[in-house]
């Protein structure tokens, strides 16, 4: 029961992260210095993404023991799609973390750095949407 709840929390944080990652991508696109609200947005986006990734890592061992085999029995394609989701999840985390640190550290004059951060966030948001879609597909096939 607890694993089912944790799986659900992981999924909800993932959806939240996919939406949240779009916000800094829009905020930073012009490279303007960060307002207080923008700093909060970046910090919370990084936190939500880290929570989604962290919950995924936390339930991964139990997933491998209980659900992974059943997924591959049900459909090899779905099983491999989960593996893809796992790889993309790491990429999303790295992109969000790097862009978050860069945006928060960059001085007001570093317009180009913030524009690069916006692109990085946009890429992370796109990949996160794919991860969410794959996660939903896998969870609808076989959960805990």
């Amino acid at each position, binding site marked *: 029961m607890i694993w089912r709840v944790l799986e659900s929390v992981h999924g909800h944080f993932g959806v939240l992260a996919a939406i949240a990652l779009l916000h800094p991508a829009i905020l930073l696109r012009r490279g303007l210095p960060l307002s207080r609200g923008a700093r909060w947005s970046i910090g919370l986006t990084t936190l939500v993404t880290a929570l989604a990734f962290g919950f995924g890592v936390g339930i991964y061992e139990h997933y491998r023991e209980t659900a992974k085999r059943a997924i591959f029995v049900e459909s*090899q394609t779905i099983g491999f799609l989960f593996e893809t989701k796992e790889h993309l999840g790491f990429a999303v985390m790295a992109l*969000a973390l790097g*862009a978050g640190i*860069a945006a928060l550290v*960059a001085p007001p*004059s570093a317009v180009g750095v913030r524009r690069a951060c916006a692109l990085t966030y946009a890429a992370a948001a796109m990949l996160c949407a794919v991860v969410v879609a794959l996660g939903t597909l896998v969870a609808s096939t076989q959960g805990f």
Partner: protein
Amino acid sequence: MSKSPIKRSSPIETRRIAIALGALVFALGAPFAYVAQRVFERARSGPTDPLLVVFDLHTSFYWRASTAAWWGVVLAIAAYAFAAQPSASTLRHRLTRTLGIVALPLAFALGLAMWRMP
């Protein structure tokens, strides 16, 4: 007037820009390192067998991700050392020192953890 999007005016500002560039290099470098490891694994083992995936240890993902993050940190340090350096003459010294201070202990800790938790 320079058309560069990055205007450098003080050492502190230069350092902050260098840290930001290092973070962006990490953002791109870590996923590329992860992909490189997967390509190596696939090249070594051939097409993926579902049975091998099912019996795969859960720790393999953790270590692959940790190793990729380590490579991301190494690349970030190199980018920082390159961007923060006002003159090229001391770049090598700064790069070696920073890699020694950060990346080597991280590599040692990673190796130790991999040995203890295979």
